[in-house]
Structures are given as structure tokens and as C-alpha cells.
């Protein structure tokens, strides 16, 4: 991961881009908050710490080289996401249970 990011960056220019994910407190998932530039993963973590957790915003940080993130194509969003729209039976409210039946 770091090798790829590093090799793609020109030595002379700016550092590679990393995506930053932060867990704001215990029990929550990491969430994307932004990016930093860094020459390697170790410094990317430190840069993320110094940039995105100055106001106690986090208890854990992940960084990932931006080039290693694969994203779905918005042009195919219909094919990707719309087929889920009519599968209402996946949701509990689809089922009618009489009110006097408890704990279900």
C-alpha cells in the first residue's frame, strides 16, 4: 500500500495523498474525514493526527493510500443500488403482526 503510493509520487514534488478515517469514540466505526499528503504510512498517520484530531475528535485513526481505494461508478448507480428498492420484505415493517403479540 505504502509502496504503491510512494512509487507513484514524484520524489521532487508533493507527497502522495492519503485518505483519513477517524473513530470519534469507542464503539463507533471509523468514518472518512478528509485527506493528507505524506511520504509514507507512518507519517500519514501522524499528519492525520496533527490535522484532524486537534480538538479531541478521535480515539483511533486509519489512513489508506488514496490510490488503493476502489469506488463504485456513479454512472452505474441505478444498476447498483436501485434493485434493492423493491425488496421491502427485508425490512421488519413489511410484516403485520397483531398488537397483542409481544416480544417479536
Amino acid at each position, binding site marked *: 500500500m505504502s509502496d504503491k503510493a510512494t512509487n507513484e509520487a514524484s520524489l521532487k514534488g508533493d*507527497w502522495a495523498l492519503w485518505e483519513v478515517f477517524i473513530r470519534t469514540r469507542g464503539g463507533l466505526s471509523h468514518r472518512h474525514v478528509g485527506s493528507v499528503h505524506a511520504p509514507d504510512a507512518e507519517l500519514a498517520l501522524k499528519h492525520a493526527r496533527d490535522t484532524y484530531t486537534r480538538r479531541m475528535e478521535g480515539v483511533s485513526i486509519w489512513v489508506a493510500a488514496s490510490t488503493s481505494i476502489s469506488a463504485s461508478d456513479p454512472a452505474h448507480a441505478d444498476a447498483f443500488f436501485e434493485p434493492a428498492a423493491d425488496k421491502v420484505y427485508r425490512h421488519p415493517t413489511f410484516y403485520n403482526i397483531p398488537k397483542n403479540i409481544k416480544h417479536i
Partner: protein
Amino acid sequence: MYTTELQKVSALDNSLSADPPELVAAFEARVAADAFIEPKDWMPQAYRRTLVRQISQHAHSEIVGTLPEGNWITRAPSLRRKAVLLAKVQDECGHGLYLYCAAETLGTSREQMIEALHSGKAKYSTIFNYPTLTWADMGAIGWLVDGAAIMNQVPLQRTSYGPYARAMVRICKEESFHQRQGYEIMMTLANGSAAQKRMAQDALNRWWWPSIMMFGPPDDNSPNSAQSMRWRIKRESNDDLRQRFIDVTVPQALALGLTLPDPELKWNEARDHYDYGPIDWEEFYAVVRGEGQVAKERMSARVKAWEDGAWVREAAAAHAVKKAKRNAA
């Protein structure tokens, strides 16, 4: 910190667009329906160009904006003031960073944007080409310049481009203390010794007009506003924001016991607004052209930092390559 429309999208830019009309129509409909546009979404070329220009100009303003206040960090008059000013300037550095990252999602690298700044191709807010002469300038900048910036920035939290809107949310949250610390400095000075009060009045005199120029040229001289408004890249007109800024700021100045350097300033009962005197747009455009008093100092400081840092950036990148090779071996 932000100034609208220092550089215009030329009519040529827009007319040469080879964007397929059906995609443009779909895009316009999404933006009109208050949807957010994300990096991989299709967007008109002019939208992309305008955004890169606006976001990078905003980022440049944050970065150049570290310099006038940075000028006083080592001379801050108490440990508390020193920590506050250092934290504030650090925030600005961070805000530049967030904004460059937002612009990078549009396909322009931070390095390209920085080169455009250093070569004079890209603009930044005119306000930072004025010098900071006394400690009171730290008060006036926080109160007036950050105040004007906040007024400009708050509506942009709902701008159409997702990464820009998210950066603005974070920036607005962080900036909430900036204006307050500035006003606190002004209060302390205005209630201090005669020398301190003089300092405060002098700073207000020097920063007032440049601050109200920060909202950009008057609406009747702002030809791209309609398009930017439709695209939700700009959410309110320059003159509306300016008027609102003046209306909220004048009472704050009066509460300090200071006077404003505008003899025509007076409350207009009928309009329910303050009337204000003519703005010296000649001065504004001269500063936009790079004729501000300390424009050369600001740019040479940025270029020096970037060039002096080249060996550092290169060393870290070289170490990463060597380390990767050693790990692979």
C-alpha cells in the same frame, strides 16, 4: 478567509464547452433539486473549472493569510495570547489543507495549485496584502476579517460540491473562536491605556475598508453571479453579504467606544440597514492586480517556504522508496 470572484470565468470558457446537452440538463436538474455533486459524478467542464478556481483561491487565501498574523506570534504579549494566536494561525494552515484536498478531488494536484499561486496566475484574498503594524491588528483581523470570512463561508456549507461543502462545515466549526478572540483583544485594548486605545482605533481605521471589500465587487459588476448562484457555488450576493456584515459590525464597534472611518455611515430607518459611503474600488482592483503594500513580501515568503522545503519533501519520499525496497528484498 475568502473573496468572491477575483477571477472571472470568461464567456469563451463557457461557450467552448463540448458537454453533451442531455448530461448538462440532468446535472442542472440535480443541482436545482439540492442534490450534492461528488467527485466521480459527471459535471460540466465550466463547473469543474470554476470550482477549482474558487476552492484553490480560497485555499491560497488561508495559507497566505497565515503570514500577517504569523508576524505577531513571537511578539504576543502574554502566554495566553501567544497560545491562542498560534492555535488560530495553525487552524488557517489546516483550513488551507482541507480546501486543497477538496480541490484535488476535481483532478488538479495541490502542487499545481501552489505553482499557480507562486507564478502569480492564481489569486488570493486582497486583505492579506495589507501589513500588520501593531498588536491591535491581531484584534482587528480576528474581529473584522474573520467576521467577514465567516459571513461568506457559512452559506457555503450548503454548496453543491460535496467535498467543498464538507470542508466548509469543518472550517466553520473551527473558526467559531477566531472572531471572538479578535473581539476580545479589541475590548481589552479599547478599555486599556490611552496608548492601547489609540492602537485599537488605528487598527480599526486601517482594516475597516479592506474588510468590507472582502465581499468582492458590487453585484452590478459581478457578471458570473447568476451561473454560480444556480450551481450553488455561491449562495448569496456580494452586496447582501456586505450589508449584513456592516449591520452586525457597527454596533460591535460602538460597544467598544471606537469610531468607524466612514463619515457617511448612518442608520437608515426606512431601509432597516446602515447606509455607508462609497467604496474605493480603484484601491481594490489595484490590490487584486498585485499592487498591495506587502504583496511582494507575502509571495516571497510563500515561495521561500516551498523552495526551502523541497529538500525535506524529497528526503522523506526518497527514504520511503528505499525502505520499501529494503522491505521487498
